[in-house]
């Protein structure tokens, strides 16, 4: 590899004629030289094979893959004759799997959905998968019990684990605003998470027992000491406080160039948890802010109060912890379900805001700064203000996530806010695809599931199933979690720097080999 390639024009259209350099480009060129029919045939054949293979250990997994394949690939194939062949093959496979497996009732179901997908007009077809996914997630608690066990990763997560996953997904979406949209590397995101959790803890617990002040709190006696504020107000308060912290951190530091910014945020990410750890007695003054390593617990549980609960006919539960004595579609609604749906709504709000922001004037300014800071400044984008907004918005969602997590766990401990968590969230963003909300959600869901349960399950699977000449490994896989994240970061950055599900624009930046050196004198420092 030659060190200094000749200056290439920066916006070359590389689609079509891929340069024959490197094995990846060669492989890509070989792939594109095939006829389109053959390419589709290969893709669909591979998916069918996968469906059959997965159908062997578990029927519904195979059906699922066949279904997704049908929905996703078929509309893209040229109609005659390949689409007919592929459709018939997928239906046959799905039918065979369903008929041979444990759940023959699913055969008509699969057929119906596949044919429905066939007849949906093309312009609505692109909503089919998102709608299916949203429905599948919302009704998750209903069919969770009947789900199969994933090979290698073990059972699907229960509702409580799912709440934690959703919180992490929220944080990843928030960090994506900073890292993915605006291109500012933030290595201290955990500080915002901690700020949110501690805000919830200060204003909804016994921490400041010398004061007694209640404001819309539910489920606690009105004479209980300490601040007790309604969790819904606290979510907003925490978000605003964290956003303000973000601005305070950002104002002096955002004028630094990219890698210095990363190290400064890392510094804040190390200082705040240490303040939390030592904050039970500030320099011997006896002022107890954070209760030190013991953390603050218990935190009031969320709830809507009796009045709102009655007004909505019990739809919004009055207290989440004592919920709920009713069944819905034959499913006994539990406290964890309610937490799950609330987290889902919060995530929905986060994703909605994130998408709307991306397409707004501000979002386009972020992308402009990310792609070329100097050019953006020359076109009149106010650098400092735009970057500070990115930082504050990212912090805002981190704060919400932290506050909700605190009230869900009913505790905050300084040990929850290590540097590892920052890198963990960054890893989600990188794996999923910087700048693309959907990719980040997928990456975050996968990694947070791995973190909570997947790694432990995988470890026990490896330890019990691998037998090399009488030798059984005995690896404590969760112990090496951070190393696995490190390896994921390394592999993704080396081989697919735009992530698994990239935003097209970001992918082009990575493959053009831009020399984006932010000039920090352009900000006037």
């Amino acid at each position, binding site marked *: 590899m030659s060190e200094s390639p000749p200056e290439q024009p920066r916006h070359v259209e590389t689609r079509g004629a891929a340069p024959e350099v490197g094995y990846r480009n060669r492989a890509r060129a070989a792939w594109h030289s095939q006829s389109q029919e053959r390419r589709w045939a290969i893709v669909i054949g591979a998916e069918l094979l996968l469906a059959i293979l997965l159908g062997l250990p578990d029927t519904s997994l195979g059906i699922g893959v066949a279904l997704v394949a049908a929905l996703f690939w078929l509309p893209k194939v040229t109609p005659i004759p390949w689409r007919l062949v592929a459709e018939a093959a997928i239906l046959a496979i799905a039918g065979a799997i369903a008929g041979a497996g444990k759940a023959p009732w699913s055969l008509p179901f699969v057929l119906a959905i596949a044919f429905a997908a066939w007849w949906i007009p093309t312009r609505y077809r692109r909503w089919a998968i998102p709608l299916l996914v949203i429905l599948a997630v919302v009704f998750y608690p209903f069919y969770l019990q009947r789900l199969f066990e994933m090979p290698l990763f073990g059972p699907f997560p229960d509702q409580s684990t799912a709440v934690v996953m959703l919180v992490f997904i929220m944080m990843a979406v928030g960090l994506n605003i900073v890292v993915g949209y605006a291109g500012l590397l933030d290595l201290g995101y955990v500080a915002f998470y901690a700020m949110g959790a501690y805000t919830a803890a200060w204003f909804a617990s016994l921490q400041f027992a010398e004061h007694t002040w209640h404001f819309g709190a539910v489920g606690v006696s009105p004479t209980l000491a300490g601040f007790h504020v309604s969790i819904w107000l606290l979510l907003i308060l925490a978000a605003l406080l964290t956003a303000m912290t973000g601005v305070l951190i950002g104002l002096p530091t955002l004028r630094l160039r990219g890698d210095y910014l990363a190290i400064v945020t890392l510094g*804040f990410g190390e200082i705040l948890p240490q303040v939390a750890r030592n904050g039970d007695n500030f320099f011997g003054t006896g002022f107890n802010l954070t209760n030190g390593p013991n953390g603050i617990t218990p935190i009031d549980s969320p709830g809507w109060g009796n009045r709102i609960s009655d007004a909505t006919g019990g739809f919004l539960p009055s207290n989440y912890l004592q919920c709920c004595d009713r069944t819905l579609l034959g499913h006994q609604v539990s406290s964890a379900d309610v937490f799950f749906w609330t987290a889902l709504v919060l995530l929905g709000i986060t994703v909605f805001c994130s998408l709307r922001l991306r397409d707004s004037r501000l979002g386009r300014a972020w992308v402009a700064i990310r792609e070329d800071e100097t050019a953006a400044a020359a076109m009149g984008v106010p650098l400092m203000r735009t970057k500070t907004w990115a930082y504050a918005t990212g912090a805002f969602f981190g704060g919400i996530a932290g506050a909700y997590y605190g009230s869900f766990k009913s505790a905050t401990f300084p040990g929850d806010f290590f540097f590892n968590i920052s890198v963990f969230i960054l890893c989600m963003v990188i794996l999923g695809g910087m700048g693309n909300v959907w990719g980040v959600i997928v990456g975050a869901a996968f990694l947070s599931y791995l973190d909570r349960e997947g790694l432990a399950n995988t470890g026990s699977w490896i330890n019990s199933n691998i037998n090399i000449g009488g030798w059984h490994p005995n690896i404590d896989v969760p112990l090496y979690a951070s190393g696995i994240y490190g390896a994921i*970061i390394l592999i993704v950055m080396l081989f697919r720097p735009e992530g698994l599900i990239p935003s097209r624009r970001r992918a082009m930046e990575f493959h053009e080999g831009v020399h984006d050196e932010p000039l920090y004198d352009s900000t006037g420092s």
Partner: protein
Amino acid sequence: MTTEASRHPLASLPRLPSGAGSVGLLFVALLLFWLAVNFVKTPADFVEVFLIGITTGCVYALVALGYTLVYGILELINFAHGDVFMLGGMVSATLAVSWGLEAGQASLWPLVILILLISMAFCGLLNATIEFIAYRPLRNAPRLAPLITAIGMSFILQNVALAWKGPNYVTAPDVLPTGDVFSIGGVSYTWNKLIVVLITVPVLLALVWLVQRTRQGKAMRATAQDRDASAIMGINVNRTISFTFLIAGALAGSAGLIYALYVTTVRFDQGFQLGLIAFTSAVLGGIGNLPGAVLGAVLIGLVQAFNEGLGWHTPGSDWTQSIVFSILILILVFRPEGLLGEQTPEGG
């Protein structure tokens, strides 16, 4: 962008105190007052702590130089550097245990020097390998890409150490003599502290000689200034960068041995923390600036020692990390070029 004026270490030192500057001066004045009161109250403790600070600073200096060398040539914060140092410490501790080093044995010093060389070679090769695997493919990628890779690499190295030695402290034999070199008025300077300095100083001198006087050093400086131009002039840029990583790793390896013998315990997660402190030192002195890194490291070592050792109104060791990172943030915000001025291709 790099002018002769900004390159001169003293060119930007005198500044009119205005705004943030006067606050900074006030802060420094308070700091000096605090030191002075502590000195008057317990002079013996003060000097003792001062000597400890110098010793710690020496270890930091060796690691900080690695950061500064790499940053100077690639503008990359090599997060994995601290973990390379930690692995060096582990290798040294393991060798010292398995060869049965004992205090006062006749063959002690040859063995220590042998371990030093092994540790330096190991860490140098490791660092160069990391550059080859993780940073070289990303040379033309957006600038944050190798930074993110470096974090990933750091985590991988930590877990390698975790898999190798487990989550507990690895103990090295306490072989350095602890007798007094001198003892004046209750202040004693022990041999192990002097030995740390005695190992550090020759390594530093060799480094300065290498960078300033040899052909390879010239190539390094040229590559740091302008990679493309030096390639045109016939310098093998890839090899020069590899060599820089090798040198940086070797420095980390020597620091690892010193740390293992002086502190006698190493754990898998210590490298990252110490690496961050060392990076702070490099930034404090002016990143890319070799004497600056040493000055910054000694200052940070003193800050840490004073904070943990003095008696009058001291935050204590619970807050060391916060203080060091506050220094880092303040320096980056108010004086990003550091005390002695930064020397990177981009200039100050």
